[in-house]
C-alpha cells in the first residue's frame, strides 16, 4: 500500500538543508520534525513547524551578522 503523509515540502540549497538536519538532530524545535529526507535540495517536514522554523533561522542570522552602529549616536 502506498504511504501517504501530510506536511510541508522545503526546497533550499544544500547548505541550508544540512543546517535543518542539524536542527532536527539536536531537537532545537523540541522534537524531530523532518519526516523524509528527499534529496540534496528537498526535505519533507511536519506541517506545524513553519513559524518556529522561520524564527529559529532568523535568530541564527542575527547571531552571525555584524550590525554596525552609527557614529552619530
Amino acid at each position: 500500500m502506498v504511504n501517504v503523509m501530510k506536511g510541508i515540502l522545503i526546497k533550499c540549497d544544500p547548505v541550508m538543508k544540512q543546517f535543518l538536519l542539524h536542527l532536527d538532530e539536536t531537537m532545537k524545535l523540541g522534537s524531530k520534525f523532518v519526516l523524509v529526507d528527499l534529496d540534496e535540495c528537498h526535505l519533507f517536514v511536519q506541517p506545524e513547524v513553519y513559524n518556529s522554523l522561520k524564527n529559529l533561522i532568523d535568530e541564527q542570522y542575527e547571531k552571525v551578522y555584524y550590525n554596525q552602529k552609527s557614529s552619530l549616536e
Partner: protein
Amino acid sequence: MYGPQTLTCKNLQEYLKSLSRDILDRLYNHPATCLAVFRELPALSRQFILRLLFVNKPVAQVLLASWIPQHDAGRDVGDIAAEHRQGTQVLLDMCIWQEVKDQQGNMAIRLSSTFRENLKVAILGGGRPWTMSATLDSDPHQRNVEFLDKYAMDRWESVLQFLVQPGRGQKAISRDAMRTLLHAGLIESSGESDNMQITSAGFQFLLLDTASQVWFFILKYLETVTERGMSLVACLTFLFKLSFSTLGKDYSMEGMDNELLTFLQHLREFGLVYLRKRSSGRFYPTRLALNITAGQNKGIIDVPKQGNLIIETNYRVYAYTTSELQISLLAIFCDIEGRFPNMVVASISRSSVRRALLKGIGAEQIISFLKQHCHPQMYKLSSVVPRTVADQIKLWEMERERLEFTEGVLYKDFMSLHDFNLLSNYASSNGVLIYSDERQRTMVVTKKGHPSIKTFWKEEQAK
C-alpha cells in the same frame, strides 16, 4: 501562500481586457479613448493598425503573414514571427479587429470601423471638438502652472499622509478617498471601528512613484464607480479626454451632467483637477491628470519636483527636505539618525531593511524609490544608487528567500514502478505535482491536488 503579496497594478491594456465587450464597443466611440488605447499598444501592433487605417475592406491573413521578414543574416526569424503573433493577439483581445471570412472564404482580418473612424478623427482631424472650450472667454482668475502643481501635490500628499498615519488627520481627506483606499486594500480597519491601519500593500503603494500611484488609485476608484450609480463608460471617457489636455489651460464644464460633475468633484479632492468653485464653469487639469493612462510608463516626462536624497556608499542617506511625508517614507526602510533645520540624516542597515521586508516591501521597490527621489547631482554618477548599496539590499532580501515552503502531501513506498509512473503522470498533467523521484519512488503533490489524486487512485485500484 506564505508571506505577504506583492502589489500589482494593471496597465491600461489589462484593465480594458477585463471589461466586457459591450463596454469596450461603447468606449471606442470616442476619439480620445481610441488614441489613448493606440498609444499604449506595442510598436508592432501600432504599425499593423496604421497599415490598415485607410483600408475599408477585410485584409487576408496571408497578406499579414507576408509582413514577417523571411530570412536574415544572423537574426533569429523565429523570434520576430513570435512577436508578430503576439502583436496580432493583443489586437484581437482588445476587440480592435476581428477575424472574418472574406468573399473567397479565406481567413481575413477586419479593423473595427468605430475604432478606425475615431482614431482618424483624433489624429487627423474632422468631427466635433470634445473639450467644448471654444466659447470660453478668458478667465478673470487665471491660474498658472506653479499654482496648479502646488495644489495637486498638496492634495495628493494629504492622501499619502493619511496612509502613513491613519490614526490622526482623518478629517483631512474626503470620505470618497477613504472609501477607495479601503476598497484597494491599502488600509484596513483594526478592531475598533474608528481606527484604520495601513496594510502591507499600503506600504508598497507608498514607495511607488507618483504616476503609478495615481493610476493605481484611479483604477481602484473606477472599480467602485458602478456601486455609486455612475456610468463606467462616461467616467472613463471623461478621464481619457482629461489625460490629453494641455497644462495651464482651462476647460469648460458645459454639457456635463450630474454624474460627471460628481466625478469631477472627486477628481478635485484627489488633486487631479483644480476647480475654483462649482459655479465658475471651468476647471484646470493638473499634472497628475495628464497622460494618466500611461501609468507606470509615464516615467520622467514631466518632473514636477526634484528629488532631494543623497545616497552614499557607506549606507548613509541625506535627505534635504523638511516635509513630514518624505521623512515618514524614508523611515519605512531607513534608521533616522539626526534631524537638522534643512536636512535629515538616515542610514540603511540590515535591521531597517528587514523591517521593511517583513512588511512585504520588495528590494526592487526600495531601490526604485531611492532612484526616483535622488538629488539631480546623483545623476552625474554612473549608477544613481551606488552599486554596493543596491546589491546589499538585494542580498538582504535573498537571504529571506533561501527556503521555499509549499504545503503538500507525500506519497511513497509504491508497489511497482508502473503505479508510480501512472500517478505521477496524472498529477503532472493536472499541474499539482511539485516533486517526484523515480529511483526512490516518492512524489509530492500540493494539498489542494490531493483529493483528486486520491479519487483517481481509488478508481485505478478498483480496476
